[in-house]
């Protein structure tokens, strides 16, 4: 019975909507074999940011909660990774990753419990305020190196009976571990989207008052979503810390919260694909405008063209990259009739 359901699920999802996803995963898996190391590193960064964007998508796209402080959980997890790692021996992935995710989720539970008392623009401002507070905790205290940041001494690995199964010090292994985590986070969020919890969150986004009138205690739902999103942002924060081997307060700053929101807006709010596409679009645009080969000395003012490009994207694709095919079809239809 279970298997039949699974078979139906596979048929429904993969035969139809799933194939571009499968192609994307295969392309990402093959990329290290064809791409140069600079580009492989870029894709790796983007995959980590994709996980971050996906975690925010659960709040913004699914539940309708626009958080402007999501970098707090990304940063808390990154710092937790650095602080929990022992100085000489490599820590085990088996406890470090769950511990880091749990810390990020607990932080989200505590912060969310306050923030979710506010609504609309007040919610946005309160999440920003909490994230900035977190930023200054790491920036102004000697807890983790202050403004200098801190190094991750040894990267974690997963060993069983003395045999190393996953060694994140190996860049290739780290790339695939990130890809696996990206696929898992995506699959988890897709599953949640189909569940009762996910349907209730969608109802809260559409009309919270109606959901309360039906009998849903919406606060608990929103807090659960906020906690889960914080935990998943923690996965991205963990990967970020391990990749760079270094954490600094900048990863908690509001720029980071703003950047991840921009990724969602670029990709298209409301779909998981949009979050991933948005992360890729954002990183590629940033990389493009930072390129000295293309822009010469002007490349150091990359924020300016990036900002203009984002404005252009939002103006031309108000529903994001995911809606582009539909938009093009609509655009072409009248032309075909005219011709």
């Amino acid at each position, binding site marked *: 019975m279970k298997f039949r359901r699974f078979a139906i699920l596979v048929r429904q999802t993969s035969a139809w909507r799933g194939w571009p996803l499968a192609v994307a995963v295969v392309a990402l898996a093959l990329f290290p074999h064809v791409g140069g190391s600079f580009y492989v590193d870029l894709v790796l960064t983007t995959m980590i940011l994709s996980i971050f964007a996906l975690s925010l998508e659960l709040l913004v796209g699914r539940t309708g909660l626009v958080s402007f402080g999501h970098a707090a959980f990304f940063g808390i997890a990154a710092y937790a990774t650095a602080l929990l790692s022992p100085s000489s021996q490599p820590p085990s992935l088996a406890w470090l990753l769950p511990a880091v995710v749990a810390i990020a989720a607990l932080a989200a539970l505590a912060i969310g419990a306050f923030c979710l008392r506010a609504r609309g623009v007040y919610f946005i401002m309160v999440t920003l305020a909490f994230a900035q507070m977190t930023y200054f905790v790491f920036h102004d205290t000697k807890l983790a190196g202050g403004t200098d940041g801190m190094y991750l001494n040894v990267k974690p690995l997963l060993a069983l009976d003395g045999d190393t199964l996953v060694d994140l010090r190996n860049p290739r292994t780290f790339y695939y571990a990130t890809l696996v985590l990206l696929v898992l986070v995506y699959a988890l969020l897709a*599953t949640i989207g189909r*569940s009762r919890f996910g*349907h209730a969150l969608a109802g809260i986004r559409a009309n919270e008052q*109606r959901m309360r009138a039906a*009998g849903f205690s919406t606060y608990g739902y929103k807090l659960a979503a906020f906690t889960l999103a914080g935990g998943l942002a923690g996965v991205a924060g963990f990967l970020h810390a391990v990749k760079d081997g270094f954490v600094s307060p900048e990863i908690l700053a509001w720029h980071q919260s703003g950047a991840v929101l921009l990724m969602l807006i670029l990709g298209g709010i409301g779909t998981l694909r949009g979050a991933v596409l948005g992360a890729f679009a954002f990183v590629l645009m940033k990389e493009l405008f930072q390129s000295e080969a293309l822009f010469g000395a002007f490349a150091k003012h990359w924020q300016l063209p990036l900002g203009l490009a984002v404005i252009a994207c939002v103006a031309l694709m108000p529903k994001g990259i995911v809606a582009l095919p539909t938009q093009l079809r609509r655009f072409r239809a009248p032309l075909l009739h005219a011709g």
Partner: protein
Amino acid sequence: MPAEILLEATDVSRRFGGLLAVDCASLTLARGEVHALIGTNGAGKSTLVNVLSGEIPASGGSVRLSGRDVTRWPQPRRARAGLGRSYQRATIFAQASVFENCRLTAQAHCQRAYDLWSDATRCSDATRAAEQAIARANLSAQARRVAGTLSHGQKRQLEIAMCLATAPSVLLLDEPLAGMGPEETDRMLLLLEALKPGHAVLLVEHDMDAVFRIADRITVMVSGRVIATGEPAAIRGNADVQSAYLGESVDDAPQAAAID
């Protein structure tokens, strides 16, 4: 045999700053009865419905639901205990199908939010409740349609269906006939008539023809106060009600006196 009282509001008040929107209003709703709540604009009808449903807390008085004091209960808990309501403005989920609208509200009784792995549409309790509610509201033919594309009358029917899907014993309906044509009104009144046996219905309504056609009891509110409660015939003959609400008799009174 006295009817079974399902909802009982005693001396309910609601204050907004200096404004006493509802002033010591009392009301009882019995199973098998349509109880109409009428009054001029700003009389406090919607505020009273909001206090009864738990959407806003009462400033004073008590609300009992099936014999239990629910005055301090938040709205979701009252809803799960059988208090359903519809809204003056349609509050359907416009992007979802008619079926999903009802399935989602029915899910309130089998929330199981922790079960992230199973498909929401596989919960047979919720799907059955949704199908029944859609059938009762005569929307079976529209079940697969996107709710936002329904006609105005059908949206109001859907609003009722969403309420029914939560299996309520008390229905608080805030102007379900607003903006409806004569045919749509007839259809809605037939629906309310069909719901009467199993439910206690509170009907807030401006359409007096409809109210006198369907109501078993009528309560009249003026400036936050209940000025009369009784059977339609008694309300029609009540001098206070006529002067305050029905008869425009403030202006008419001298002329009426002159004719007499």
